[in-house]
Every structure is written in C-alpha cells, then in structure tokens.
C-alpha cells in the first residue's frame, strides 16, 4: 500500500515537481495550495508526512503548524519544510511542531525531497 503525502505548496509547478519525484517512488500525493485548505485535506488523508512551503498566500505555514498541534490525531504527522528562505527559520522554532527537515529550495536537488520524506516516514 502506498504511503500518503500531502504537499502544501502555492507554486503549481514546484508542487508538480515534488509530485513527480514522490509518485515515481510509490508515494500517493495530494497537493494543496493554501494553508487554509490544507487542514481539511490533511484531516481527510491522514498522510504519513507533510511537505510544507513556508510562504503561502493567506494563512502562513506557522499558522498551519499551530493548527496541526491542536488536533491530537494530526500533531504527530512529520513535516518537511521546503523553502527559499531557510534563514528565516531556526531549528528551535520549528522542532516542537514535528518538523523533521528544513530544505533550502535554492540549493537542494529534486531527490532531496524524497530522501527527507523517506526519513520522516521511517
């Protein structure tokens, strides 16, 4: 059975790229473009991991992380953050939210999203 991943990414083409990489490695991917919409999808899908962009339209990624923590069944889902501005985050800030990796979009290889998701879902 395929592991389910929810990708929260407002850039359509970036989200599609993550999907290509993950689906070709036997993951079942759901894409959502805003943090507001993400909570419902995550609740429905109950994914093995979440890939989350930091800067989103409307509610921010931090709002979503806080929201996830307020639901006991969603609080333990591991989160991989992929952002162009990793310098704006510290490990201490995000680690209480179940963030297992922070990837820098400006330097990462496409396969790093796969490696991070694999580690998060072990």
């Amino acid at each position: 059975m395929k592991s389910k991943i929810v990708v929260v990414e407002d850039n359509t083409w970036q989200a599609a790229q993550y999907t290509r990489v993950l689906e070709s490695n036997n993951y079942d991917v759901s894409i959502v473009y805003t943090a507001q919409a993400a909570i419902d999808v995550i609740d429905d899908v109950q994914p093995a991991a979440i890939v989350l962009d930091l800067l989103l339209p409307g509610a921010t990624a931090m709002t979503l992380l806080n929201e996830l923590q307020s639901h006991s069944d969603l609080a333990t889902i591991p989160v991989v953050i992929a952002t162009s501005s990793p310098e704006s985050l510290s490990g201490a800030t995000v680690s209480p939210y179940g963030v297992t990796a922070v990837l820098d979009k400006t330097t990462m290889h496409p396969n790093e999203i796969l490696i991070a998701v694999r580690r998060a879902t072990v």
Partner: protein
Amino acid sequence: MNSGVNGGDGCRGLSIFGDIDTLTVAAHELKSPLALIRQLTLELESSASNPDNQKIILEQIRLTSEKALRLTSNLTKAEQLQSSLFETSSLHPSAVCTEVFQEILPLYRANNRDICMSTKSRTQLVVANKDILRRVLLNFADNALHYSGDGGVVELFTQLIRKDGMVRFGVRDYGPALPASLWNDILTRPSSPQVVHDRPESSGLGLVIASRFAETIGGKIGAIRHRDGASFYVDMPISKQLVLL
C-alpha cells in the same frame, strides 16, 4: 475599499535601489523563480523524466525565466526613468489590453489558470507610452496569476472614469484578502517594498515599479480591496484626439 497609491514626488528621480531594503526585496522576489528553474533543470538532467514530462518541464523553465526577466527588465527600466524621456501618444485601451492579454495568456494556460478581457471596443483613447503602460499591466497580471486558484480566472478590464477624464486599466483577481494593516502599508508606502507573507510574491516591489512607471506617463495606480480578492489598476488621462472610427 478603493484607494489610490501615491508614489509621491518625493520618490521621483531617486534610485529605486536607493536603500538596501529594496535591493533585498528584489533579491527575495527573484529567488523563487531562479530556484524553480534550477530544480526543473536538475530534473531534466536526470534520466527519470519521460518525453512528455520533458516537454512540460521545458515550457515551465521558459515561462518561469520570462517572468523573472520581466521583473529584472522592469527594475532596470525603473532605474533609467530619471534620464529617459518617454514619448506618449494616443492609444486605444482595447488594443493595449489585447496585446497584454496575448502576451500573458500562455503563462496562464500553462498554470491551468485563465485570463479574460472585459473591455469596450468603442471607448476613449488615452495618452500614454505604450511600452510603459504594457509593463504596468503585465506587472499586475503576473501578480494576479499567483492569487487565483487552480482553474481560476483573472479579469483584465478597462473602465471609463468620466468625471476624472480618465480610463482605468485594471486586473482583478480572486485571491485571499489582505489584512487591513498590510493593505495600508502597500497603499501608503509604495516606495518601501516589504515582504508580505500573506501574499508572498506581493512584496510591494511590483507596486513601487508600477507606481514609478505610471507617474512617468501621467497615470496613477490604485487598488480596490474586495472580499474575495483585489483589483490593481492604473488610471490614464483621456486623449483629446477623437477616435477615428
């Protein structure tokens, strides 16, 4: 909420890179498309992508680089405003919109978005520099693309503002509404771009540039905050020349 964005005479003639914040914001806005181009290129290099995907990825690389180039070209142009004289002429609003529509449509289609035109064929001519007006509208359309959902529609419109002797060129999106405080910052401080997290690609830099461009050709930009999105517009003076039709 309908508000004019006052670029202010205070910023005319000053370098757009007069402060380090602007440079930082410009770098921030370019990071996203450059990072995407890099990742798509790396994906192409891998043998994993099939021919159909390769074609899609190549188009995405081209369109993303064109979008980034529009920003860099506008930044360069904004820097040169001080020393340039822009020739103005009488332009047909519908013709300008059609040109912008045709230029931006491939980017919208490739993003599974749509853009439509709402312009009247028989309307007043405006006095403007065509290239600059085109850049302002493309700027608005680029921004609106990001705030329309999958399958969403953005509207490119013109409207006669008879009492002011102006024609309004605008772009309406249906994206998330901005909080009032951030909205006020954008409207009152267009010379100070900032990273607006609620609309990540709306740092205000595009508005700074659009405001400079509009001032240069006798126009004024503004915005309307809707419950379900926003309209950004530029008002251009009506030409005294009669429409020859």
